């Protein structure tokens, strides 16, 4: 592909995405279906903008799946994974084994040889991680019990691909195994025990590097304060894992997932997430377009009934197995239906496995092409099926759905408060909230501090809070409050503008350094502004008054009165500030006023508030009466 055509291709893909995804969304079909439609339309069957190279692009775009698994891993704490272990092994394992056995059995009954039947069973038992997770996320169903179960099953399937790839050469016989060796990896020429050792070694490298190498590396990168370097590091990490995994013949998606899980507890988690996210999104989009484009309509037109029958039959069979499992694992009816609807499709790993069977001669060319079409159609149907679930089935069960969501909240606890800036100001606020049982997600730009705080067990993440994506990653959509305690006024204003624009539901509590900052924040309409030194200086003033013999209670009240007066003055000034000249003159007036306040009787008056406690007027009145009486 020369450069010109590469640019042209990029243009076609991007344009198709931009045209069809918003259209699909508008029609309530979801982004995944939008990408698939775009692929079908620009593909060889309709407009023909892209032809055979669609398959190459699909292989390239499969990397989006790798990135997605990395992101899934990074959003997943190892503790959660451990809690899901029974559903991953039990639910996932049973799903793959039962579905594969059922499909293989039927294939054998209709006259396929044993090895082909087994290959078909394995290929078709898998579901599409990319489409299902994307759709579940899009609809906000990830947290439901069906979402969690589907996730567990998908995770197991991703793992199951590895032994499947190992079994296929055996099914094909020795001659075919040689043909398959184009996929040469480091371990191929080693004896069995050494292969195991190599695989374990690769996994160990990922875990150890994630634990002990990534953090110092990130710290060094963060210190350079060159943002794109961070993105480059994040990409390098994912690509590196993929290369390592390919080298030892493991699934790179699985490796990326493992890498993500290792980094899930890292303070750079949000930064990594927001760096990888756009790449993942684009590559996945590309992948879906490629799937759409690879659907061979000519083939379908030749045998429409056979292909549609296969699609419906396989999906129904998988759906029944899933419903059965959901029942065994005690999902409520509506959740069980969602679970079955979501996973009844055939996944993208089928394409990988199919290319393998084609090469090994396990299946004929025609059969491979037909199964490819079946897989692609079933993937394309998934968003539609989910749509049916959302519009038709879910409304019947709205009640229990709410219950399920509440359960999910406990698993993925989201912090109601985000603190931007965890310096001497923000840390105090954060500690105070923490002491009162309110946990905050902390964002800070000082990598050394982030590191130190992380060691203290505080959830703190490296990143610039004025970035939209980072705020999203920190949970700004679900949070109630954003506390902005950053050091630099410019940055503070930027975060305020960002938050007001994209997260208008967030309560903003903003630290201001001085009166100038306060005015700017007032101009932006910020209601809760905290000038950083006011309280401290007044507290010192209170102590000074007390040490000079003043009563404690009076001194405290005096400070509070002074504070209120000062805030009022500032608000008055802010209103006048638009006219600079007036501001200056008015500032002068205020200084005059302050002088008046400070001098003599004005001070006496406001310090004497609380007349009710010992009214001089009453005393005068009573004494007057006394004089009258006499």
């Amino acid at each position, binding site marked *: 592909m020369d450069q010109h055509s590469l640019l042209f291709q990029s243009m076609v893909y991007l344009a198709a995405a931009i045209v069809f995804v918003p259209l699909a969304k508008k029609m309530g079909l979801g982004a995944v279906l939008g990408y698939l439609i775009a692929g079908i339309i620009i593909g060889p069957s309709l407009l023909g903008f892209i032809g055979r190279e669609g398959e190459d692009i699909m292989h390239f775009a499969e990397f989006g799946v790798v990135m997605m698994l990395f992101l899934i891993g990074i959003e997943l704490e190892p503790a959660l994974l451990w809690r899901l272990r029974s559903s991953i092994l039990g639910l996932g394992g049973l799903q793959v084994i039962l579905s594969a056995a059922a499909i293989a059995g039927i294939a054998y009954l209709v006259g396929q040889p044993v090895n082909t039947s087994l290959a078909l069973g394995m290929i078709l038992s898998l579901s599409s991680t990319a489409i299902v997770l994307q759709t579940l996320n899009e609809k906000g169903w990830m947290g439901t019990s069906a979402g969690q179960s589907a996730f567990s099953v998908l995770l197991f399937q991703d793992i199951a691909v590895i032994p499947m790839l190992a079994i296929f050469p055996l099914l094909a016989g020795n001659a075919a195994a040689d043909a398959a060796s184009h996929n040469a990896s480091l371990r191929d020429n080693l004896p069995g025990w050494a292969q195991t050792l190599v695989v374990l070694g690769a996994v160990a490298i990922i875990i150890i590097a994630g634990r002990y190498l990534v953090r110092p590396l990130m710290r060094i990168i963060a210190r350079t304060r060159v943002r794109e370097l961070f993105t480059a590091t994040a990409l390098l990490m994912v690509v590196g894992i993929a290369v390592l995994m390919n080298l030892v013949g493991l699934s790179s998606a699985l490796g990326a997932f493992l890498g993500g899980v290792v980094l899930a507890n890292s303070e750079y988690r949000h930064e990594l997430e927001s760096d990888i996210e756009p790449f993942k999104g684009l590559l996945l989009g590309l992948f879906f377009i490629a799937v759409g484009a690879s659907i061979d309509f000519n083939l379908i037109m030749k045998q429409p009934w056979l292909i549609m029958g296969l699609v419906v039959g396989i999906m129904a069979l998988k759906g029944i197995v899933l419903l059965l499992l959901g029942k065994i694992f005690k999902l409520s009816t509506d959740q069980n239906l969602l679970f079955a609807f979501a996973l009844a499709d055939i996944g993208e790993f089928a394409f990988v496995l199919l290319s393998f069977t084609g090469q090994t001669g396990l299946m004929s060319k025609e059969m491979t092409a037909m199964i490819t079409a079946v897989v692609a159609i079933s993937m394309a149907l998934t968003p539609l099926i989910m749509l049916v679930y959302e519009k038709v089935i879910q409304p019947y069960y709205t009640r229990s759905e709410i219950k399920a969501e509440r359960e999910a909240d406990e698993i993925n606890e989201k912090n109601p408060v985000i603190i931007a800036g965890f310096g001497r100001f923000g840390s105090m606020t954060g500690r105070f909230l923490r002491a009162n049982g309110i946990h905050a997600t902390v964002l800070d730009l000082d990598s050394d501090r982030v590191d130190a705080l992380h060691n203290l067990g505080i959830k703190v993440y490296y990143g610039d809070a004025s970035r939209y994506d980072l705020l999203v990653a920190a949970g700004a959509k679900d949070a109630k409050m954003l506390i902005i305690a950053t050091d630099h006024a410019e940055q503070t204003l930027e975060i305020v503008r960002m938050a007001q624009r994209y997260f208008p539901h967030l309560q903003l509590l903003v630290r201001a350094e001085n009166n100038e900052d306060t005015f700017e924040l007032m101009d932006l309409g910020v209601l809760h502004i905290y000038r950083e030194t006011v309280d401290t200086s007044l507290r010192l003033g209170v102590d000074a008054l007390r040490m000079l013999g003043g*009563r404690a209670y009076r*001194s*405290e009240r005096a400070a509070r009165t002074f504070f209120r007066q000062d805030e009022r003055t500032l608000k008055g000034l802010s209103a006048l500030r638009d006219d600079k000249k007036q501001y200056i003159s008015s500032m002068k007036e205020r200084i005059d006023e302050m002088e008046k306040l400070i001098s003599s009787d004005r001070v006496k008056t406001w310090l*004497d508030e*609380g007349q009710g406690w*010992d009214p001089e007027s009453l005393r005068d009145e009573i*004494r007057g009466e006394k004089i009258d009486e006499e």
Partner: protein
Amino acid sequence: MARVLINFAHPALEKSRVHSQLLRVVKNIPGVTFNDLYEQYPDLDVDVAREQKLLEQHDIIFMQHPFYWYSAPAIVKQWLDLVLEHGWAYGHTGKALQGKYFGNIITAGGAAHSYEPDGHHGHTVHEFLLPFMQTAKLCNMHYTAPYVIYGVHRQDTSDIQEDAARLKQVLERLRDDKFDLTPLPGLKDLTQILQLPAQTR
């Protein structure tokens, strides 16, 4: 020797003529503990443990305060609400204060005759102090007669000094425990103890 505690409450002592004079005397009586509530808790955050410990260490407890709106300044209410805990001061297991004496030392703006049933305020000070009395009773304490300084707005310095000296005498008598404490709850005014015959036990 009885141990006497004075819990003092005045939000604007700097403006009070009478109490500042009284304090000059009250603060310096050996064996009488002076506890300045507003000075101790300017934010009204009463330290319950500290206050309970003080109460446990004394036999006779006074609340000294101006008679604001027929009652006391805000911190006294806060103090009562927080310190007299259930299970400690009252209730089945609340016996910490059992047998102690409790009373008020108050300054009122109105003259003595205005606190008569037919006077300006229509009730006696004792009637107004009913919540304190019942509080003491609920906490297994004896309520003593209040020590009242009437007509503070009309008093001049010599009057106040006289009152202060008399209060000092009363507190010293109570501290020295030279008479039978049993008639205390029956008294009308705490100054009356000065007339009681001294009893050495």
